[in-house]
């Protein structure tokens, strides 16, 4: 009697867990399908060549992803230029130089950065970083690519620091001992032995940070000025793919070319972040294999 009941519960739970797993996959598949089905409808109206090579995003007349792609690229590149050295050096300091006590305090603080809502960071961009940049560079307003890059760098930093730190920590102690025993100092050991050995992990860290920066919407929407022209530099206002979707989706009439176009640019973004994340995961896995 008792055993029968237990087996029933067992199979019920099995079913429930299986259902939960399948639901996640179905959701992902559904999103994927929706994006690409709508994108195809878009490309029936607008030739893909125009879409990729044009120079204007001017819904109803011109649909070219190019200025949005360049904007996204500028902002992401800028954020990585700031966050990668900062993140890797912080990670190296944390794992190699910092006294244990400081390490215990600093690591959770850096990880806490990830918990700040993106709208709060965007807010800082408007009231603090923007005016600051305007003053430094003597421009009218500071809502531009650089502003977005700085904010995204802050947001990507926890990911980059945490994963880099894990990678550096995972380098066997015997490598460091070997280097030090040959009379290398701490810095030589760090730059010539430890960091090269942790390199796959560092690439993974950068890729996952980049994925975060590419997909971020609210912050860039608030901080970058949103002009859909091809930017010439970091001080130009830009409009990323994510911001474009967020701005226009609320206003657009259903099932028009404009509506479909937003799915098309979302699909492109999806492919880009997917590629970036896969690269990151690939290197992260290689690191795991190397150390196990």
């Amino acid at each position: 009697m008792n055993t029968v009941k237990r087996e029933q519960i067992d199979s019920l739970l099995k079913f429930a867990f299986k259902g939960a797993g399948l639901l996640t996959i179905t959701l992902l598949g559904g999103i994927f399908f929706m994006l690409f089905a709508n994108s195809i409808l878009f490309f029936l109206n607008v030739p893909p060549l125009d879409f990729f090579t044009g120079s204007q995003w001017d819904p109803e007349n011109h649909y070219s992803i190019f200025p949005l792609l360049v904007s996204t690229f500028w902002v992401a590149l800028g954020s990585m230029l700031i966050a990668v050295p900062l993140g890797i050096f912080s990670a190296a300091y944390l794992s190699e130089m910092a006294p244990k006590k400081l390490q215990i305090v600093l690591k959770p603080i850096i990880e806490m950065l990830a918990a700040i809502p993106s709208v709060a960071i965007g807010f800082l961009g408007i009231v603090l970083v923007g005016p600051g940049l305007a003053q430094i560079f003597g421009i009218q307003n500071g809502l531009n690519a650089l502003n977005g890059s700085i904010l995204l760098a802050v947001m990507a930093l926890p990911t980059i620091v945490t994963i880099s730190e894990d990678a550096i920590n995972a380098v066997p102690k015997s490598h460091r001992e070997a280097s030090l025993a040959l009379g290398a100092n701490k810095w030589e050991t760090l730059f010539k032995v430890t960091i090269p050995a942790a390199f796959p992990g560092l690439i993974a860290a950068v890729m996952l940070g980049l994925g975060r920066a590419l997909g971020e919407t609210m912050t860039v929407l608030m901080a970058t000025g949103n002009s859909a022209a091809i930017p010439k530099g970091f001080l130009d206002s830009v409009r990323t793919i994510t911001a474009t979707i967020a701005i226009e989706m609320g206003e657009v009439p259903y099932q028009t070319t404009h509506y479909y176009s937003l799915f098309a640019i979302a699909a492109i973004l999806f492919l880009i972040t997917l590629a970036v994340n896969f690269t990151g995961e690939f290197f992260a896995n290689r690191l795991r294999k190397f150390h196990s």
Partner: protein
Amino acid sequence: MDGIKLRAENLNLYFGQKQILKNINIEFPKNQVTSLIGPSGCGKSTLLRSFNRMHDLSPDARIEGKLFLDELDLYGRKNSVTDIRKRIGMVFQKPNPLPKSIYENLSYALNIHNYPKQDIPNLIEAALRESFLWDEVKDEMKKPAVKLSGGQQQRLCIARTVVLRPEVILMDEPCSALDPISTKKIEELILKLKEDFTIVIVTHNMQQAQRISNKVAFMYLGELIEYDTSDTIFKHPNNELTQRYIGGYFG
């Protein structure tokens, strides 16, 4: 101090509250092989590592007493630790080649110590020949060092130490991870290296200590129990503990 290369005076070493080495006084003669033996946890590796200041890496290690290389105070405030480690090389228990090529494993230390670029290939060849490794690797210097066998890796680690022409080579159970044939090669190598270097080796293997050493130090629970020529220690030790350890009654 003629003929004495390395020595410790009243050495006490603590990890946190725990005392690992108790008032060690020992002198290692020049161009000889000295073995440190004793059961696990007796402090022999700790003693070895204190000579090239490897304990600097552990924040809770504390050292009292003096260590000297000739007349150089190893823990003297003004003496550079990198210079000391260049003069006192170390080979570890588990072969630990750097994740670089065979060639780079040797050139690494030379570059760090600013040896002239044009001398480096010759120095590397000489060190590899000295370590009986040249014939096995001369055609594949660009191969990753981890692709070598365990015994080859350990000889590479010795070559990497030898290439800097240190005065002393410390070896921490260099054969414990190796098969008997590789072990034999390393023992032959040690006997040849002592012509040029002073060697201190920690070993768990009594036969090995007997085969290669001129002098043997027996340690137990952080103390130096007996230190004498290899013959005396193995044939007629004075201390009863030594006798029992050699006889295999504990270990």
